[in-house]
């Protein structure tokens, strides 16, 4: 009776009790009788092991197959497409062109400008996010009243959609917008209103301002968590020994938060390469491609010019660049950690 039930269970194992079914009714036990109890002591574990492997694979399969199909396969495909003059139109043939897309990128001034702009964006956004995020985290670290409120306020931009804040900043940086009013009409810092989004550098400044404003709360939260790990006893001992605030920071706080610092740096650099929505919506990469970053240029090549091969080669170059950069940063980080240990 038990066996019959288990046999039934194993047929729809994915929905009911896979482990049970597998444990009691292994593959070779198609016979009606109860599965023979293992006699040798070392047979049971092997038995169990294959059964548990099969259970694990049942749990793993649906998600992992989806992951393979939707993420890993496109990764391979992006690489392959970058060697083709790819044609998306039905019925037309895609031509293998070797490294043509890469040499084209190499000789394409807009590609280089886009790469430079991505670098500019990182230079404008990564250091301020680290410094300001750390500053706010330090100010909020002690159990000051109102700490929870400030943490929420600084984190609000992080949870707000990129589309909304991009349009919001486009509005703030409009010719007769709030920023120009502040800089020109109120404080007279600028002698005339600036057309922020109509020039390369001013456009990059506006986009970067958004990046910093939106990102500070994120690095703040990471640093706040890291600061919890700084030893209060060590800080007090250092103070007793007459170490000044700067010295205490250098000798006690900084080593303790170093892993978080490097984590934040790696993530921000990757995030900097990934800037897309804000540029697309605020400047559209214009005027005349002057504010293109790598991703907006890739997107334009692929989905406006329908040049999927060239777009893919830009994506591959970007991926390689991000990958190499994170590996280098992690190396530095590991070296540091060993040095500290």
């Amino acid at each position, binding site marked *: 009776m038990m066996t019959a039930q288990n046999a039934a269970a194993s047929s729809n194992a994915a929905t009911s009790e896979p482990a*049970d079914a597998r444990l009691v009714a292994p593959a070779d036990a198609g016979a009606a009788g109860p599965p023979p109890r293992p006699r040798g002591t070392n047979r049971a574990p092997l038995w169990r092991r294959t059964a548990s492997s099969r259970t694990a694979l049942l749990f*793993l399969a649906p998600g992992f197959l*989806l992951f393979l199909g939707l993420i890993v396969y496109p990764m391979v495909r992006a690489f392959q497409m970058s060697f083709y003059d790819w044609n998306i139109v039905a019925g037309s043939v895609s031509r293998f062109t070797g490294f043509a897309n890469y040499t084209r990128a190499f000789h394409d001034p807009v590609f280089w400008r886009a790469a430079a702009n991505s670098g500019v964006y990182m230079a404008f956004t990564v250091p301020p996010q680290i410094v300001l995020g750390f500053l706010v985290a330090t*100010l909020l670290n002690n159990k000051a009243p109102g700490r929870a409120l*400030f943490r929420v306020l*600084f984190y609000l931009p992080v949870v707000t959609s990129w*589309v909304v804040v991009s349009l919001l900043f486009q509005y703030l940086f409009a010719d*007769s917008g709030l920023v120009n009013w502040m800089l020109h009409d109120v404080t007279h810092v600028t002698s005339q209103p600036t057309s922020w989004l109509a020039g390369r550098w001013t456009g990059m400044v506006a986009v970067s301002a958004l990046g910093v404003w939106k990102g500070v709360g994120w690095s703040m939260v990471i640093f706040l968590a890291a600061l919890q790990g700084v030893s209060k006893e060590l800080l007090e001992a250092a103070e007793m020994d007459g170490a000044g605030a700067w010295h205490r920071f250098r000798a006690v706080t900084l080593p303790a938060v170093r892993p978080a610092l490097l984590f934040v740096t790696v993530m921000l650099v990757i995030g900097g390469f990934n800037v897309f929505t804000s540029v697309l919506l605020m400047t559209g990469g214009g005027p005349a491609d002057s504010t293109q970053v790598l991703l907006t240029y890739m997107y334009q090549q692929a989905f406006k010019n329908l040049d999927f091969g060239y777009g893919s080669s830009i994506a591959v170059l970007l*991926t390689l660049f991000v990958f190499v950069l994170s590996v280098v940063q992690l190396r530095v980080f590991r070296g540091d950690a060993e040095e500290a240990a």
Partner: protein
Amino acid sequence: MTTLSPTALAPARSTRSRRRATGQAVRYLVLAVGAVIMLLPFAYMLSTSFKSQAYVLTLPPQFIPHPATVSNYTGAWSSHDFARYFVNSLIVAACTTVLSLLLSSMMAYAFARFAFPGRELLYKTLLLGLMIPAMMLIIPQFVLAKYLGLLDSLAGLVVFYVGGSLPLNTFLLRGFFAAIPKELEQAMTVDGAGAWTRYRRLILPLAKPALATATIFTFLASWDEFAWSLTIINTPSKQTLPLAIALFQGENSTLWGLVFAASVIAVVPVIVVFLLFQRYFVQGLTAGAVKG
């Protein structure tokens, strides 16, 4: 207790405490300035969403809308179809979250609790997905979606959002599952519970905080997603909120009141969720950082 007056200690500490007080004042001043910079754009957006078209870009700017109007909200919600986009976003985000949580928690359980050949390799492959940003795959994913007939459909959004969210959620949940004491599971096994029962009756209930974190992150990520929906959705009635707002602004570059009324409609649920569940946000964010 009351015999020792605190003021008795005051003279010795007075200079120090005064310096402390000044320090506190500076601290709150800096924090307040920062908070104003964080909040001002939101406040201004909210204000503009109540202005009629004639007042959206005046100099000097209007901070308090006068005359105030709700016509942007009624217009966005009914005549500009934002009610439908709201529902579309809700459907997509809910389906994505349920599917992703189910699949990733099953994977996390397998990785955390079973020894099987190739486990490390499979897990590392999955982590590779954490390192590849979504935008890098958008071209081949578009070709794939076209081949699968998923272009211009909400299903096409859900399927690829789920795929993209699996690595992070599995990573997050695996860490939590692994920390659940093995003895509990062994006790259940002795009582004859199979793996599915243990997963459903023991692991999932105990992992509620981690599941909450994963839920919030997945829901918000799909609620806010823009690039993929921009790429595959053509039919206006299938747009989600971020896409609809961006395209609406692109066509009516000066109708800021309407754009921001729609934006407020999109952002308010996010802010409410964030305020209610903030501690889960922090948990999710720091999970990666603390591990190093």
